[in-house]
């Protein structure tokens, strides 16, 4: 039994009253799933298997159902992440304002790519979708705190401060245990889906987070081509009108 497995029961017992208070906020217990996983992630830095099992027991679900749900959401990490989770916006407004250069600078500086964590466990790096701060492009989040108007100089200062331990941001995990160093093996059996990969598990260094396209040309022939079907387009355009009519009909019935 690993050290954290031994430690988990006491954490769970400590958080149980909070979890029960969350459940009480909703008409149905399952609604508490996301908030409870958030709570454990705040304490452990990621959504551990133990936390998911505990949540399943508490809410009367199977562990598989909880993990299936957790795996849908990109902000739930199913593996340990670095002390600083750097999430750089790759949205359109940032991209036309130089985000590609900013991301390349990060990858170069950290020596890791999209969805990777540094060996020392200090940084996890991810290129994320639009963060809703386009007026301050290019932007990013560090442990979910916004940082705006990125420049290479600002990045240098930020990384230096993080390495020196003087960067002021709340850690991803409230109980930042010193032994919580990075290890791929720890939860290695967790299936790696395209989404919510957590911050680990991509082997290619300096992966820009785009596509490593090699199969596309072969598969292209299988793309089914059809003539434009105006009726289908019209359906999309008029969806709102139809929706409204349908609702009205249902009400009349």
């Amino acid at each position, binding site marked *: 039994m690993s050290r954290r497995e031994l430690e988990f029961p006491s954490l769970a017992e400590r958080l149980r009253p909070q979890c029960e208070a969350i459940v009480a906020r909703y008409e149905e217990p399952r609604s*508490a799933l996301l908030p409870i996983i958030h709570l454990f992630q705040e304490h452990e830095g990621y959504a551990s298997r133990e936390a998911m099992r505990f949540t399943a027991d508490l809410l009367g679900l199977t562990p598989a159902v909880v993990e299936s749900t957790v795996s849908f959401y990109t902000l739930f990490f199913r593996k340990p992440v670095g002390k600083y989770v750097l999430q750089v916006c790759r949205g*359109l407004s940032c991209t036309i304002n130089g985000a590609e250069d900013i991301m390349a600078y990060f990858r170069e500086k950290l020596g890791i790519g999209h969805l990777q964590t540094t060996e020392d466990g200090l940084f996890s790096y991810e290129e994320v979708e*639009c963060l809703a*701060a386009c007026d301050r492009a290019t932007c990013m989040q560090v442990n979910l705190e916004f940082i705006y108007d990125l420049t290479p100089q600002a990045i240098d200062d930020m990384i230096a401060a993080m390495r020196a331990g003087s960067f002021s941001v709340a850690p991803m995990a409230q109980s930042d245990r010193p032994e919580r160093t990075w290890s791929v093996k720890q939860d290695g059996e967790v299936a790696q889906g395209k989404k919510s990969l957590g911050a680990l598990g991509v082997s290619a260094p300096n992966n820009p987070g785009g*596509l490593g396209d090699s199969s596309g040309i072969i598969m292209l022939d299988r793309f089914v081509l059809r003539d*434009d079907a105006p009726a*289908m387009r019209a359906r999309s355009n008029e969806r709102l009108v139809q929706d409204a009519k349908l609702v009205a009909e249902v009400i009349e019935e």
Partner: protein
Amino acid sequence: MPVVKVLTDGIGEVDLTDIATYRQRGGYLQWERAVRELKSSEVLEMADRSGLRGRGGAGFPTGKKWSFLPASDKPRYLVCNCDEAEPGTFKDHMLLEFAPHLVLEGILLGAYGIGSHHAFIYIRGEFKRGYEIFSHALDAARAAGFVGKNLFGTGYDLEVTIHRGAGAYICGEETALLNSLEGKRGEPRLKPPFPAIAGLYGMPTVVNNVETLAYLVPILRNGPEWFAAVGTERSKGYKIISISGHVRKPGNYEVPLGTTVRELIEIAGGLREGRTLRAVQPGGGSSACIFEEHLDLPYDYESMAKAGSMLGSGAFVVFDDTTDFVKCAFNLVRFFAHESCGQCTPCREGGHWLETVLHRFVEGRGLSSDLAMMRRVSSTITGLNLCALGDSIEPFLKSVLQRFPEQFEARVLREVASA
């Protein structure tokens, strides 16, 4: 310049996160008035008469949406959608962090308008700071007696619950949001039944955007006629426009609907020195581009639809002559491919393969047959999915491919092109 301050009043000048400051400026007076003096139906009627339409993207008339709730004794819910993630939109983010009490008062009024006793706000997971600010605001409002049991001694109860998302654009779609709120994967539901009939926990539910609900406060304060007096014939009132991209002063600007596209660009400081306009994406990542010839169109729901695009959530992205539209198209298609929940094959596969094809173009290895395919591909994706995400994949691509074919043709691999 027609910039106004209605919802944005005081933002950047005073600390509206402080309940005392908010109340000094007339905050929660409309809430108190509604509970003490108005019937639910009167609030609904005011929303209806104001002509307010949904500010989250679809533009559905708010009063009408509320009126779809069937009369019954079942519990009913109001859900405020603060899962703002449409590329280019950043208005709800601002309102949440800088005017949380206004947002809360809007939620309370909306809940009262539909006769609900339990309202929810679904906050995007990334908005951690906003979530904390709003939580404090809610606590302060509860302590002041604006949320809870027997409000203002009238016997009316209203509870508000904050629910944090965890990273999924699709949860902005109202039925996906409801699933997420129920602790499930954020996958859209088959409609009908619509949320008005069977929404949260199978009960009648209304889902409204943050900005939509916030506008209820000034509408009650100044009367629905005040709101309906501005705007265009069918697009009434004001709207916060998130302007970004190649402009000198990107930001949120509140204007009457019907302000021209040209004026909006000027409001945001105009283009950078020596640059010329190539395109504007007027309604977020899901919308097609409009061009120079559309500059004098009024920015409202109808005009944007007529120009082949949409007003959407009011995300207004400006592109100048430095823009690589192949990369932009790749960027947006990748976004939708990444955010597809995967339930519907046309969206899941269509997005993925379009992304693959466009990546090839970005690398200068496009095929000439790709060009024809991309012009026709919408017939195999659009309109064939449970929700609108699949329909959002290609409007931008199609509009820029039509307008700037040379940028795509220049990326076709020469040997393949001649073969």
